[in-house]
């Protein structure tokens, strides 16, 4: 497994973990009382997600290096990496666009404003997961 694949797997796992934490918090009395509070909460969640990603990638690279008995090095991106990233980004952009559109429609139909940041957070996590899974798919399947 390469460093780029480890990074993609970690991105999927951390997005699932943070989303599960937000969902658990939301359904266990942690639902924000105002739009501003909800937005701050989601900003913190995104911050935690970035922090978790960085730590998990470091741990993942060390763990895989130990298992493979060979140091996993992050090589400089070549033309194939750029192509894979481009395709994965296209898929993520598609999911993000549709997601944002659905959130806007949902809000237009009267969704309580406080749920807006939660919905946008969910959409961004889904787009991130789409990006990472697409990367894995194109790296493995071509």
């Amino acid at each position: 497994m390469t460093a780029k694949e480890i990074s993609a797997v970690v991105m999927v796992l951390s997005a699932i973990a943070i989303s599960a934490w937000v969902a658990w918090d939301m359904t266990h009395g942690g639902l924000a009382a105002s739009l501003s509070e909800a937005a701050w909460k989601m900003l913190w969640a995104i911050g935690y997600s970035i922090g978790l990603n960085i730590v998990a990638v470091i741990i993942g690279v060390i763990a895989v290096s130990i298992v493979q008995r060979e140091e996993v090095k992050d090589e400089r991106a070549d033309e194939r990496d750029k192509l894979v990233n481009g395709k994965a980004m296209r898929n993520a952009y598609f999911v993000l666009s549709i997601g944002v559109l659905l959130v806007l429609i949902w809000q237009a139909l009267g969704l309580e404003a406080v749920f807006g940041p939660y919905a946008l957070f969910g959409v961004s996590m889904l787009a991130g997961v789409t990006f990472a899974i697409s990367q894995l798919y194109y790296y493995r399947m071509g």
Partner: protein
Amino acid sequence: MGKGEPHIVNTVRTLRFHAGEMTQAALAEKVGVTRQTIVAIEQGRYSPSLEVAFRIARVFGVPLEQAFQYQD
């Protein structure tokens, strides 16, 4: 990395063998791509750009069409 069956086939694995079993890592280093890209090219999962194809052929000192062929 195209749709459908690949039309571009290559003899990179054979060329490596005839070059004293050159490793994928060594070829990748000479060509300026990652080892994973060489693996993908050999397995037919990725067709490189014309520039990388020329660089691969040049490493083995063969014409491009000896390293890569187009199949109908």
